[in-house]
């Protein structure tokens, strides 16, 4: 019998395979890529027993439809509150479920949030490129063929795919409920390219996310910032979350698909703990920056790391979301009334 596989029935343009990223090759100009919301990506993986950085599907605003081939596939969905339907029935996220062959699962963008993750128990069998399956479409690295997922693609499941049949259950992941009004930054490394009052304005005025944003950079709209001197610096390294200010003064936050180096002053850097929630902003959303010190950034990071050290608990989705006919149809009624059961 063939190995079970997840088949892409339809995929919006922003759907890619991402693992924790391609590390060790920034020095050769190779972008790290990886998930836009690493916390949601790791949560989905952990919920189906995978390593937190395993290969999973990142779904953008264009949505995704999936089917299981050659056997059932147990999946977790976490991230933005996308509208998830199983054979037309709405399901509450984040969740875990087993997708049977013949069933249709679809994810469509909901009212808020930009990125949602689908992890499969056993993850996917994909050939790593430079140690990673993370897709970087601009340079054509990772995923199945260097590009986004498209209708007809098959993702064979890895060992451990037989996690067991799982009734649709909601994941208890309160750490994914994060503020989107304030984005915390550490000032620098080139805040001295701006007058103190301009840095102050950067931190106090509202910013709006531009519709031209993508996995490489989030473009901000607001009153432009002025440089104290020049705006062309001799290129240096770019960290994930670096906020570049090009000549016209509108900041660009450097996201997962950023180039490893660049030549504009970087006024500040979004802290790691806020990168995922910032990535989940939709174009048109407004927010403010707030400066914190390194110790605060590290403490916030530790809170997230500790949340992921415990098993992800789940509660069966019962009558609130599913009709009894639907449950009978799935032959699941006997299994769903047990108490919430953490899975390894």
């Amino acid at each position: 019998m063939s190995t079970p596989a997840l088949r892409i029935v339809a995929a919006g343009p922003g759907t890619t395979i991402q693992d924790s990223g391609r590390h060790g090759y920034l020095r050769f100009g190779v972008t790290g890529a990886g998930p836009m919301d690493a916390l949601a990506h790791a949560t989905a993986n952990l919920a189906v027993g995978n390593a937190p950085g395993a290969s999973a599907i990142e779904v953008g605003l264009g949505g995704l439809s999936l089917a299981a081939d050659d056997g059932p596939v147990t999946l977790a969905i976490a991230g933005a509150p996308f509208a998830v339907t199983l054979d037309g029935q709405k399901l509450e996220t984040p969740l875990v479920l087993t997708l049977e062959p013949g069933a249709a699962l679809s994810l469509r963008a909901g009212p808020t949030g930009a990125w949602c993750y689908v992890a499969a128990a056993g993850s996917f069998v994909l050939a790593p490129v430079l140690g990673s399956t993370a897709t970087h479409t601009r340079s054509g690295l990772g995923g199945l063929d260097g590009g986004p997922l498209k209708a007809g693609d098959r993702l064979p499941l890895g060992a451990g795919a037989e996690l067991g049949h799982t009734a649709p259950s909601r994941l208890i992941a309160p750490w994914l409920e994060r503020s989107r009004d304030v984005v915390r930054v550490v000032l620098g490394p080139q805040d001295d390219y701006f007058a103190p009052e301009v840095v102050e304005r950067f931190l106090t005025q509202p910013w709006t996310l531009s519709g031209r944003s993508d996995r490489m950079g989030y473009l901000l709209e607001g009153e432009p910032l002025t440089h104290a001197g020049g705006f062309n610096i001799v290129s240096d390294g770019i960290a994930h979350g670096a906020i570049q200010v090009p000549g016209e003064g509108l900041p660009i936050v450097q996201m997962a698909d950023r180039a490893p180096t660049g030549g504009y002053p970087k006024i500040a850097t979004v802290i790691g703990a806020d990168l995922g929630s910032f990535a989940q902003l939709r174009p048109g959303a407004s927010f403010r920056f707030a400066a914190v010190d390194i110790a605060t950034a590290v403490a916030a990071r530790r809170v997230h790391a500790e949340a992921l050290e415990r098993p992800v608990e789940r509660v069966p989705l019962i009558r609130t979301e599913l009709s009894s006919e639907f449950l009978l149809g799935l032959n699941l009624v006997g299994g769903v009334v047990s108490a919430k059961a953490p899975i390894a």
Partner: protein
Amino acid sequence: MSPSPESPAPERSGPRLLDAGETALVAEFGNEVDPTISDRVLALDASVTARALPGVRESVPTYRSLMIHYDPLVIDRATLAAEVTALAQAAPAQARRGALWTIPCCYDPEFGEDIATIAATTGLTPDDVVRLHSGARYRLYMYGFAPGFCYLGGLPEAFATVSRRLKPRPPHPPNVVMMAGGLASIATVSMPTGWFLVGRTPERMFSLTRTPTVLLDVGDELMFEPIDRATFDALEARAAAGEVVARREPQP
């Protein structure tokens, strides 16, 4: 330039340490394109790599600084900063002498599509553009922007007035040789660009289907050897089959 006797010699001062968030520390040796600064960046890079501190993920050498990516839950900022300062003090002014490479380059108008524009901008003849470009010795200061994108210093002064394109050009062919803003470059992966195209090399500066994936080390030097179209086609076929067609020159 005449440094006053009071000013400290730049090669003796330690790097400036700057934070790029809580996961990257920048050791900055200067703010210009200069082989002495680059040598110090590369010497620290070699020391940091050899030290292999737990929690240090990777380092990225650039023209003027070394970016050290780290996991602050494994190594704290103060410990890393102290280690980097000590390593910078102990590091030699130059860690290694770079190799010298000859990179074949076809300047035919089909590939060197901007040579006429460069000639018009600089007042040189197209032949002079090729002669000056292929007569210079370049240094690979850093990779960046895209896999195998080589930032080169050493472009002749005659090209200093060649700025960047007003509007980016649509994606260029792979393995192109370019100039802009007083710098030269080699771009492996097809991308939109603001640089001007001078020629095309059959060599791959980065290839996933060849060992080694990356040919040149940062700090290496290179020269371009003009080749005609027939030679380009022959070398292109060999390079496509995984052969290295650039030459590493013996150095005394």
